[in-house]
Each structure stands twice: as C-alpha cells, then as structure tokens.
C-alpha cells in the first residue's frame, strides 16, 4: 500500500484554478504576470498553456482598470478572478474593490450580483521593505459587501478558492507565500457554498483559545504543540472567512477556556485581532474571563528592510508560546 500523496498549498491553488477553468466556462483569470514563471509562485504554472491565453490573461500594468474590467465582466455573466501578485499593488485598485464591487448589489437594490474574486498575495520577508510586505486583511474586512477569505491550509487553499469564485458576491481572497510549502493530503474536490463557511477549530483545548488565520494560524498550531508539551491545552480557531465574521465559535470556545489570545500578521490598530477581542468582550459574560484578552500582531510600523529590524518585526512561534504561557499562569 502506497502512502497517500500530499499536495502543497501552492499546488493546491493551482488545482483549484484548473478545476474552475475546466468545469466552469464562465470563469477566467486576469492579472499581471500570469504568463510569467515566477509572479505568483507555483500557484498558476502553465494554466495559460492548458486553458488558453484568452482565459488566463496577462495584462498591461494597470491594476485599477484591470480590476474594473473584472468587475464589468462579473456583472456581465462571467466569474473572473483578478490577481494582484502583491497585495501592496492592489492599493491602486481600491476604488473598484471598495466603491464598486462591494457596493453594487446593495445600492442597486439587490438586483445585480458581482461575482468577482480579487486574489491578492502576501509576499513578505526577504528584506523587501515597506511596499512589498503588507498584509492588509483588516482593511478589507472593514468593508460591508466584501467577503474576505484567508486559507491557512492546502486543503482550504483549493476548496475556499473554488467556493470564492463560485460565490455570487465579491470576494477578497488573500493567500500568503509563506504558506506555499504547507502540505495536506487533499480530499476529492467538492464545491462548497462560501456563505456556509466560517471558523473551524483546528485543535481542541481547555486552557486558552488562540484565534488566528492564514500563516499565523500555522504558527498558532506549532505554538499549541509546544504548549502541550508544557501541559497547557490550547484551543486553536482558524477564522478562514474574516468578513462577514461568524463570532459564535470564538465566543463558545472562550466560555470553555476563559482566555483569549488573538494572533494576526497584520497591524494592531483597528486590526483583525482587535475585532476578535472586541467581539469576544461583547459576547462572553464578564464572570467567565480568567484573564484579560490579549493580542499578538505586527508592531504599528511599516515593514523594515534591514535584516535585524525585520527579525524584530515579524513575531515568532516562541512569542505566542511565551504570551500564552504567561496568560495561563506558567507551567502546569
């Protein structure tokens, strides 16, 4: 009997795109670098050769117009995926994402849907500096009408991509290049309804609740493992869909553990971790809390370039372990 084959996160994304292009003729992909071997890692390799350059469209350097083109095609019967190989460059397209895609259904009386997926890639580290390293999921999660999806596992990378593209609402799909080597044994493809998807408990525990998403979720799982060796049982919740946020599983978990540590690879102020804590404070009865909730995020500074500063900028698994240990009250 051979071992089940594992698939990497990057390959799982490619599998998701291939599934969509093969099974849904109204799907196409558009963005800078889609014919290049390196713009989007291994997540779309040779899709243009397999499905044609009319459905895997490489574009002029025009983030705003290309995103608008995707929005226009979406309201005209297509299901486009507009790809921004770095989320930093998607800033040029914010009018189309925030003012247009997220608003048309509501402001036109629910008569039109905008099934566009805006895929933005986080590509940080490696001394790339302030404009090649941002995350920004909290920004987008602030916008009503825009679904925000951040897969943390290879399985989710494929399945949530498919669910996002098949969803009738605009979806901001954010994946992190630091996750591309993550591996899963993938289940057969299923088409999930994104409206039914929400947080998942990745590990059960009774001492503290760690809430996170994307790459930080993997760090939390590693931290939970290390905490387990110290006798601390951490429950790890993967948000998966940041907006609209389903708060129930977070509140339910804290009622069990009495402690919350929110971990997010974005900034602190008005960030996703702040939203998780605020939701928990509103939803969990005062008597339940054994400790004030806490968060680990990036420091409120642009990403530095210099190596030692960069090392100080990104939190590590050990930082999560240390904070959680303090919150639980040391070794058990």
């Amino acid at each position, binding site marked *: 009997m051979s071992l089940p084959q594992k698939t990497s996160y990057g390959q799982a994304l490619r599998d998701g795109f291939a599934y969509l292009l093969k099974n849904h003729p109204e799907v*196409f992909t558009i963005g800078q670098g889609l014919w290049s071997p390196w713009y989007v890692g291994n997540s779309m390799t040779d899709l243009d050769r397999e499905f044609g350059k*009319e459905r895997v469209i490489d*574009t*002029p350097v*025009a983030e*705003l*117009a*290309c*995103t*608008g*083109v*995707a*929005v*226009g*095609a*979406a*309201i*005209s*019967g*297509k299901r*486009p995926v507009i790809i921004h190989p770095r989320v930093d460059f998607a800033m040029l397209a914010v*009018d*189309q994402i925030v*003012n*247009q895609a997220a608003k*048309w*259904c*509501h*402001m*036109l*009386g*629910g*008569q*039109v*849907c*905008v*099934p566009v997926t805006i895929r933005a890639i986080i590509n940080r580290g490696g001394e790339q500096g302030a404009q090649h390293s941002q995350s920004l999921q909290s920004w987008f999660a602030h916008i*009503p*009408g825009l*679904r925000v999806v951040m897969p943390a596992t290879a399985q989710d990378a494929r399945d949530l991509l498919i669910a996002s593209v*098949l969803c*009738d*609402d605009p979806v901001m799909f954010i994946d992190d290049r630091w996750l591309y080597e993550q591996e899963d044994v993938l289940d057969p493809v299923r088409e999930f309804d994104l*409206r039914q998807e929400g947080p998942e408990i990745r590990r059960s525990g009774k001492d503290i609740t760690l809430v996170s998403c994307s790459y930080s979720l993997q760090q939390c799982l590693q931290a939970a493992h290390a905490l387990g060796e110290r006798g601390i049982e951490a429950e790890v919740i993967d948000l998966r869909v940041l907006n*609209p946020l389903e708060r129930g599983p977070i509140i339910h978990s804290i009622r069990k553990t009495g402690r919350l540590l929110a971990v997010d690879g974005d900034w602190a102020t008005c960030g996703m971790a702040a939203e998780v804590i605020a939701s928990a404070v509103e939803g969990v009865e005062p008597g339940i809390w054994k400790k004030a909730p806490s968060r680990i995020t990036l420091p409120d500074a642009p990403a530095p370039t210099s190596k030692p500063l960069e090392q100080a900028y990104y939190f590590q698994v050990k930082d999560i372990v240390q904070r959680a240990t303090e919150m639980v009250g040391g070794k058990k």
Partner: protein
Amino acid sequence: MAAQKQKPGDLGDLSLPDKYRAPIGLAGFSKAKAVDWLKSLVLIRAAEEKIGEEFGKAVIKCPCHLVIGQEAPAVGLADHIMKGDRVFGAHRSHAHYLALGGNLHQLMAEVLGKETGCSKGMGGSMHLYQPEVGFHGSVPIVGSTIPIAVGAALSIQMDKTKNVAVSFLGDGATEEGVFHESLNFAANFCLPVIFIVENNLFSSHLHIDLRQPYDSTCRFAEANGIPWQRVDGNDVAAVSRACQSATRQARLGTGPQFIEMVTYRWRGHVGHREDLDVGVKRKDDLNLWKKRDPIARLAKGMEKKKWLQPGEFERWEKKAEKEVFKAWNQAEKDPYPQSEALLGRVYFQGNRR
C-alpha cells in the same frame, strides 16, 4: 466631419457658444426619426425641470446632476443600441437612462428613495439601473464605470456576439488615471466598446481651460490608436450619425471607438441652480449657449422640412409635462423600502448559477 481634418487636441469653433446655432440639418433622416428624437428630448427636459423644481423645494434631497441643455448625446446614441448592448453612465445620467427607454416613474421613485425605484430606492439619482433597456449602471465616482464598460466589452468578446458596450463619461473623467488605463486596455485587446465623452467644458465649477492644456479630449484616443470623431453634441442628427458609424465598426470586431460630443449644461454641477457665480466664462457663456439649444434647433430644422405643424411642438411639451406629472405623483405616494432592506441587500440573496 473627417477626423483627419480636425486636430485631436483642439475643439476649434465647437467650443464657441455663438456658433452652431443654425437649425439642425435632417438630410438622410425620416420625419418619423425626427419626431422620435424631439419627443425623447422634450420628455427628458420636462423630467429634469420637474426634478430641479422638487430639488429646489428640498422635496428631493439626494444629489441630482441635471442634464438640461445636454440631452442630445443620450438620444442620438439610443437609436443604435440593440438588445444585449451594455451602456454605462456616471453622475449625470438621467438622460442616458430615459433615452434608452428607462421607466420614468421608476426614475422619479428612485430620486425619492422609494422601493418602486429603478434601484429599489437604494441608489438615488446617482445609481440608476435598468438592464432590460440596456442601461447597466451609473455611479458618481468619476471614471469608475469606464473600466467596467471595458469589462462588459471583454465579456461580449468572449461570448462572440455582435454586441457593444458604451461608456458615457465627462471631460473631467479624462483627467482620471483609470481613463487612460482603460483606453490602453481596450485598444490592446481590441474590445467592442465605445467611449463617449460629453465635453461640456466644465468639471464641477472648473472650466476645461483651467484643467487641461488642450480643450479636446480626442487627443487621448489618438494616443491609443483608437478611431475618434468629434461632433456638435447639441446636434442630435450629428450625434446619431457618429454613433451609427461607431457602433457599426465596433460590431465588426475592429476594436474600440471614441466620440467627443461638445455640449453645455445649463444648470450647475449639482442641483437646480445655474451656478452663474462659479468658474470662468460661465456668466458670459450661459445665455449664449441657451441659443444653441438642442431642442429648439431640432424643432427649427423640422419646421424647415414642414415636419412640424404650428402648435405641435407645444402640444408635445404639454404631453411630456403631463406624463412627468403623473409619474411624479405616483412616486410620491409610493412606499419607502422596508427596514430589512438595510442589511438584507448587502450580499446577493439570489442564485445566479
């Protein structure tokens, strides 16, 4: 007019308010066509006068950008729109909507924020939508519908139909970066989209002479290798001829087309007032431009052809006013959206698949 005889950056005498006052030449058009134009122009003006009046009384609160004086571009285009074409507007789009056959009562209900409006009362004057007649949306963020129209054209190209997309924009929108991105994109991918610039010489309070080094926006089409035409936007026959050739070409799959229509709005940027106190030349020019009236010039052209009997024009005006009155009265009585609409329309409730 042949494009090569005009300069792409210079409006020439088209920008002069004391020119182009002659009755409109109707050679090549039927009486029935001219009658259609006149009825449509008169209805749009009557609707806008009513909206202006109610805005002035603060019965209408949402920002309304009135089209009085520049009705002809919308009417001249509408002749050439087929089923499946996709037209997009901007902040000043009441005429685009009505000329295509958009429902008058639903427009009135929309500016009043009523559930019976064309956007269910959720959009107001600046967010009109009536896909049944080919009007696929308007928004006030300047330039935003330009790439959206290009995307509609990409969808049409993928579906291999003979349809076209149309993007109505103003001269102000040509100053937005996304306009240039969109022209380049459309030309590069040879898309069936027609860019129509209604150059009314003003963006809000500021005259084009204070905003651009040249007064004609055709230079941007020239720079992108897009065939362009420039017409008197107050001459519905000239507009119709230009739109006929542009739509015909675009349907053949030869790529985008560009038409600049030179016109002038009689009211201020927003609301019912004339805004005589803003911008350069406004006070001097407005009265002269009123003599370049697209409606009076068409009526005179029809009189010359003996297509208009004495008193007939006035009868149509009365009829349009009555129609507007009826639509308005109904809209005023209509209900507002239920409170559930606030959260219930954030995400799409249907299922397109």
